[in-house]
């Protein structure tokens, strides 16, 4: 309880309250505009918070981080276009509800489910805080290295069907992070004798390039999307009643969100997958899912909105981001001289509690704001795409140029923008690059410290947490290899249109040899029959 009061004291300032208000309302508006997203907004606004107090700047950006998903549900439900990537599943059941004249009810359900998910998550976080404060110091260099490696492995395997390129892009991220002066020996790495590469590639430049500028290019290169205006039906407070009718789905989905948020590298998509599958399997009307199911909407929204608070656990306790937004939040913390990790929990617990409370307040503020402003937010959501591209490009300049007043940074960001544009055109993932840059740096520093005390390879995993993390990593990799083998077998079976015959390379060769021998036999018999005519041909 003392901790909670201490947290209140940190937050009890007019500038923090203002930052929280601006951040949460701004986050909702940014989330409501399809094509912008919180990552772009945080990257653009981060340099603007340099001159603010750490708690003010952090609260502002935390507001955007925690509230964007609320806004993202509005266009997902009303115009079938997710405002943020994690709202994609919301379109599945939200838009059909709008089509049958229940738009307002769907939005209300989404808000309520999101709110409950977020509140459950924050209360879990607050109650976990003392445990985390005890566990976090047990994480030494090798445990943090292994946790970062686990995060990277999970990010890679979470891209189903694209694991190889996700791993390659994560390695590219690690490589980008190593460019410039090496921090211990001060030797140059991959600078190609160019002075502008000596200071390395700034994370903000990469993020703004890959997310903001590439998105601006995508929008400007495409056409404006015409959206249907559908009359909104249903009441704004109906959602409360609907969510109250499905406490099991709400609770379990939020639980999935909390669990998946805590595990680095997993995030919203996996929690939504688990929650939605659970809701569908246990529903009395599973056939409604994908056609405007209330339970489906509750599952997807409560699962995705319970992740941001839970994702703060590995970030604050270990300094390890779980996904792109927390990776950006890590940069935000560093910029404001707050170093997340075990030390933060040991020395600045009041600050940690203040962040949790800020998350709680911003959810309440957002909920109040949304209940009365949905109609106005729809106008924001309908901004023409290409005009939005102009806006993002103009704002990107502020984010990049204000870092170091460097035109070279802008050029680098534009190059990353082109690269991001290509990745988006090909539907290839960008997240592994960002995670590679952030986690690669952590892994390099921690491995160096850890190996100084390691005599034999087994020493590295001789502590319980390190051993558990190591086993977890091995299991995930083994499971991934098994899935890849099964998938390859299935593809071969489809290609050869056979399920019973073996598709192993040796068996294929043997089958080919048998086929050739049979064909040769047929040919030889045909030739011989021509030479020795049958007796019936005699005169």
């Amino acid at each position: 309880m003392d901790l909670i009061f201490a947290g209140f004291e940190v937050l009890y300032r007019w500038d923090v309250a203002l930052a929280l208000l601006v951040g949460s309302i701004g986050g909702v508006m940014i989330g409501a505009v399809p094509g912008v997203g919180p990552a772009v907004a945080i990257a653009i606004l981060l340099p603007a918070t340099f001159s603010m107090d750490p708690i003010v700047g952090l609260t502002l950006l935390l507001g955007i981080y925690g509230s964007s998903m609320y806004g993202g549900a509005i266009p997902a439900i009303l115009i079938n276009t997710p405002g943020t990537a994690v709202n994609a599943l919301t379109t599945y059941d939200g838009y059909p509800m709008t089509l049958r004249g229940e738009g307002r009810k769907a939005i209300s359900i989404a808000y309520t489910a999101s709110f409950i998910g977020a509140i459950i998550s924050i209360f879990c976080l607050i109650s976990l805080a003392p445990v985390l404060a005890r566990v976090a110091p047990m994480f030494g260099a090798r445990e943090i290295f292994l946790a970062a490696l686990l995060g990277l492995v999970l990010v890679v395997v979470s891209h189903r069907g694209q694991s190889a390129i996700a791993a390659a892009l994560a390695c590219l991220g690690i490589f980008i992070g190593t460019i410039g002066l090496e921090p211990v020996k001060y030797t140059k790495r991959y600078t190609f004798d160019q002075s502008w590469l000596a200071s390395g590639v700034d994370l903000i430049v990469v993020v703004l390039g890959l997310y903001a500028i590439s998105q601006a290019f995508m929008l400007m290169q495409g056409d404006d999307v015409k959206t249907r205006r559908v009359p909104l039906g249903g009441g704004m407070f109906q959602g409360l009643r609907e969510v109250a009718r499905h406490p099991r789905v709400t609770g379990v989905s939020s639980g999935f969100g909390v669990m998946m948020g805590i595990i680095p590298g997993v995030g919203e998509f996996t929690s939504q997958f688990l929650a939605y599958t659970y809701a569908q399997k246990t529903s009395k009307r599973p056939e409604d899912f994908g056609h405007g199911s209330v339970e489906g909407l509750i599952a997807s929204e409560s699962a995705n909105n319970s992740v941001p608070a839970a994702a703060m656990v590995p970030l604050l306790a270990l300094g390890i981001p779980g996904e792109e937004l927390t990776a950006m939040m890590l940069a935000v913390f560093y910029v404001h001289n707050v170093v997340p990790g075990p030390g933060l929990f040991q020395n600045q617990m009041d600050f940690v509690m203040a962040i949790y409370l800020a998350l709680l307040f911003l959810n309440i503020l957002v909920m109040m704001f949304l209940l009365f402003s949905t109609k106005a937010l729809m106008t924001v959501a309908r901004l023409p795409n290409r005009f939005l591209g102009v806006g993002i490009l103009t704002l990107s300049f502020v984010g990049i140029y204000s870092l170091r007043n460097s035109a070279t940074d802008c050029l680098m960001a534009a190059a990353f923008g082109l690269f991001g544009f290509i990745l988006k055109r090909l539907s290839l993932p960008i997240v592994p690059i960002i995670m590679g840059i952030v986690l690669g740096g952590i892994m390099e520093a921690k491995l160096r410290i850890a190996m100084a005390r390691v005599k034999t390879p087994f020493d590295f995993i001789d502590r319980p947490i390190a051993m558990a993390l190591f086993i977890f990593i091995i299991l995930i990799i083994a499971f991934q290899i098994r899935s890849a083998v099964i998938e390859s077998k299935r593809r071969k079976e489809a290609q050869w249109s056979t399920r019973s015959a073996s598709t192993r390379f040796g068996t294929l060769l043997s089958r080919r040899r048998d086929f050739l021998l049979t064909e040769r036999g047929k040919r030889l018999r045909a030739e011989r029959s021509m030479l020795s005519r049958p007796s019936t041909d005699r005169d």
Partner: protein
Amino acid sequence: MSDDPFPASKGPQRGQILFALAFAGFAIFILSNLGNQTTWAARTKLFAQPGFWPGVAGAGMVLFGLLHLRSLRRGKGLRRPWIRREDRAEARIWLQPLEYTAWFMIYVLAVPRVGYLPATMIFAPALTWRLGYRSPRMLWASVAFGVSVVLIFKGLLGVKIPGAAIYEYLPDGLRAFALRYL
């Protein structure tokens, strides 16, 4: 809507082979330059060598880049010829944002000379015009957007964007104001 809300993502096939080839080529280039671009520190263990992590990253890029390339070659729709007409068409689309990159860089280079406010007031409506919005409403909206961005970020939030060379020619009182807020 499809029946599976969580399909395994593969992405469109057009252009994939070009990207995979370019990526693998870049990865091999990076790895082959490991010796030239990093130094070997004496009396230092392998994992603490400056080249260790770039080496790990480069090796990973080569390994997984080639695996990705191999997975594309095995795909049904990507049999010979390696680069097809739709791949070339996709590559042409990749080059289209170069024009917007040029616009952006002109804007970047103009700011320290012309000033943040004037450059933004020219850049936003000009690009809006270029994108095909010709109505006075959209053009005025772009001007208003440009002005508000400058006022919020430089005037209100005090973001570090240097004053322009052209502001030096302004009268004393106005010059200080323009250098600080515009």
